[in-house]
């Protein structure tokens, strides 16, 4: 498959996934804020800090308020990771490889983009973002379903899934990071029942509440953390994302299971193994924020290695044997 096409498939899915996660992140932030007592400081400042885009936000809007934050994350075309920007980038990538994806996939990305673009023209989204965020999540689910059901699960599809799962691992880590104060300890001036409400809202933001209940029953800080980071089967847990990404990467390279493969396979394999055997109490003891910081930087390394190995223009016809050996270059 063409390197450029693989690259575009990978990013089409990454941006689509990012749009969904921004919607999830904003949704939980708005809900948690509603439930927070006024005494608990400025709830909005933390939200922008969690996106890591304080500077560009401040340049455009100054001090964060509810309305400016909603605008920044949803309909602002200048904001790099707003939903409208992600949907546009997903569509731009899809548009450059329409012949390589199914028409249904293209139509879903296109419809999604038109939905977001049209909503971006009205003030209604900023005033009441709930329906909009729900529509974005639903469109993303349709997109994943359509790609799953209408595209051959070959190399291209695996590049797409690889992009999606790496993005999701990264985004889940950001949502957890943003709420780490909540997850690390009981808030001092928050009552026990409110504490539960906040944990429930966090779980709901990643559609995890019901699945969590089935697994653990009552709400508990450490258990929530364990579920979101280390659960083997929940589709948004970091471990599950890493496992599945690894499966796709192996399918792409066709590396036999006993071989360690290309550089991205080694980096991703190491990370997935770490999560397979991780113990939640150790992560907490080590410092959750530091841990998540490191995870994000390792995910960046995997992304860079994928780029080097598959997308950067290579000049030599490469055979199967060479490809497996060129890992540690």
């Amino acid at each position, binding site marked *: 498959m063409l390197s450029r096409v*693989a690259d575009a498939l990978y990013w089409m899915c990454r941006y689509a996934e990012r749009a969904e996660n921004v919607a999830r992140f904003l949704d939980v932030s708005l809900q948690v804020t509603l439930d927070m007592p006024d005494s608990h400081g400025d709830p909005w400042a933390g939200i922008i800090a969690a996106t890591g885009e304080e500077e560009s936000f401040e340049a455009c809007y100054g001090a964060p308020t509810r309305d400016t934050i909603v605008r920044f994350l949803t309909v602002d075309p200048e904001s790099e990771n707003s939903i409208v920007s992600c949907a546009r980038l997903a569509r731009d990538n899809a548009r450059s490889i329409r012949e390589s994806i199914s028409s249904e996939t293209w139509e879903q990305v296109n419809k999604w983009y038109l939905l977001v673009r049209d909503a971006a023209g009205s003030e209604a989204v900023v005033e009441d973002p709930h329906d909009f965020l729900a529509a974005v999540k639903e469109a993303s689910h349709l997109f994943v379903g359509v790609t799953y059901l209408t595209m051959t699960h070959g190399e291209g599809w695996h590049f797409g899934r690889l992009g999606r799962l790496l993005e999701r691992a990264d985004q889940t880590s950001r949502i957890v990071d943003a709420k780490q104060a909540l997850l690390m300890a009981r808030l001092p001036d928050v009552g026990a029942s409110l504490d539960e409400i906040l944990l429930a809202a966090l779980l709901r933001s990643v559609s995890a509440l019901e699945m969590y209940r089935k697994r653990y029953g009552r709400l508990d800080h450490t258990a929530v953390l364990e579920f979101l980071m280390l659960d083997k089967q929940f589709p948004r847990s970091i471990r599950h994302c890493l496992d599945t990404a690894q499966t796709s990467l192996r399918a792409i390279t066709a590396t036999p299971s006993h071989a360690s493969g290309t550089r991205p396979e080694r980096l991703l394999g190491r990370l997935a193994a770490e999560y397979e055997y991780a113990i939640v109490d150790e992560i907490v003891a080590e410092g959750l924020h530091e841990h998540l910081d490191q995870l994000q930087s390792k995910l960046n390394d995997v992304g860079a290695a994928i780029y080097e190995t598959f997308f950067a223009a290579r000049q030599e016809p*490469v055979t199967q044997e060479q490809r497996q050996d060129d890992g540690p270059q």
Partner: protein
Amino acid sequence: MELSSYAPGAFYDEMFDPERRPRVGCELLARTISALPDADLVRRQRSAERSLLHMGITFSVYGHERGTEKILPFDLIPRVVHAREWAKLERGLAQRMRAMNLFIDDVYHDRKIINDGVIPVEVVESAASYLPGCRGLDPPRGVWCHINGSDLVRGGDGHYYVLEDNLRCPSGVSYVLHNRQVMKRTFPRVFEASRVRPVDGYPSELLRVLQNVRPRGAATPTVVVLTPGPYNSAYSEHSFLAQQMGVELVEPRDLTVRDGFVWMRTTRGLSRVDVIYRRIDDVFLDPLAFRPDSMLGVPGIMSVVRAGRVALANAPGTGVADDKVVYAYVPAIIRYYLGEDPILPNVPTFLCFDDKQRSHVLANLDKLVVKAANESGGYGMLMGPQASSAERAAFADRIKANPRNYIAQPLLALSRVPTLIDEQLEGRHVDLRPYVLHGGDDIFVLPGGLTRVALKKGSFVVNSSQGGGSKDTWVLADDIAGRDSAAC
């Protein structure tokens, strides 16, 4: 929708005769339209537009903001061509395609036609699309032009004429296929009863042609479509055709020349390419051969073409035959190579490099259409009767400064088709672009084509870049179907 108020007018109407009776093959369509409530037709029109937008069948407009896409306006009243009429067009188009290929091959080899005094050497060599570097080139199976989309018009006399040839990269065929899909949904019953010939076979025919012209030694050829990229106005068509044929769509940066072959860059290294359906103009193909300043292109690809190790469709240099001055010689070209009379006539054409013809043109600018010889897409054109005297004077200066670059034709009273305008049916002028394929053995004419319609009242300019839209073209399998039994 009330049809009794529809006025065919002073022009040839494709659906109604001057007595307002539906023409052959249009009876059922006319009856269906008149039986539809007004709102229903408008609703179907809207739903057709919506599906085109969702399918993303868009073109980019030059001069607009980068990345601006529009849908080509679509009108749901089809243009009907009955079977006997089509049979003649088909023969005429195939004849033209055959003669043009012999001409191009001759021009780049022995030049018999020039030596025999049929066409002056200056006319050929002064064509901007003539490429001296293609002398002696031998494209596989001797075919230079594989894909041709001539523009036909029907004049007030009811006859079809060839208005111009497009032998470089004719575009628009994807609209033909998409319009058809939408029409089947919009008028399923009439469509079936009218026995309309299918157009869906085009991608398979195209792939067959491309595989047929593979270089020697490539038993199972790798075919690709080469596009300038997503910002090209016809990008969605390039992508669509690649997808429908199941081949890779490549951009110049995906290709590289190495060890005398063309390769594409894949996730598994370089992979060889044998046949390229290129949608890039000649001069942007290879910066080493043509334009060193070009950012587009694949350096060195022309040397691979010359060595016969990759086939381009259409072959480079083919454009010499769609120069608008060369066009005037096509009837003579057909007689010269085939010994036959042209089945489809040209529009009478005045050549401005000829002193006598030029003075006629300059004296009659208010009656003529003047075209630049090397432009297309409705650019570089003067519509004499509709232009201001200042515009005519400016054009007269341009003609005098560079006579070789201009031709003039009488303004044809293009035929019209009923078109939905502001929820009413009004006549609008149309042309017809059929698509013709040549893979070395036989010639395939797609039974259908792009009917372009000038949506502005009174306008004769149908180009999408100038406010034109499109219609589905129904070529009927026979002329009996579509009438009810009482009428037979």
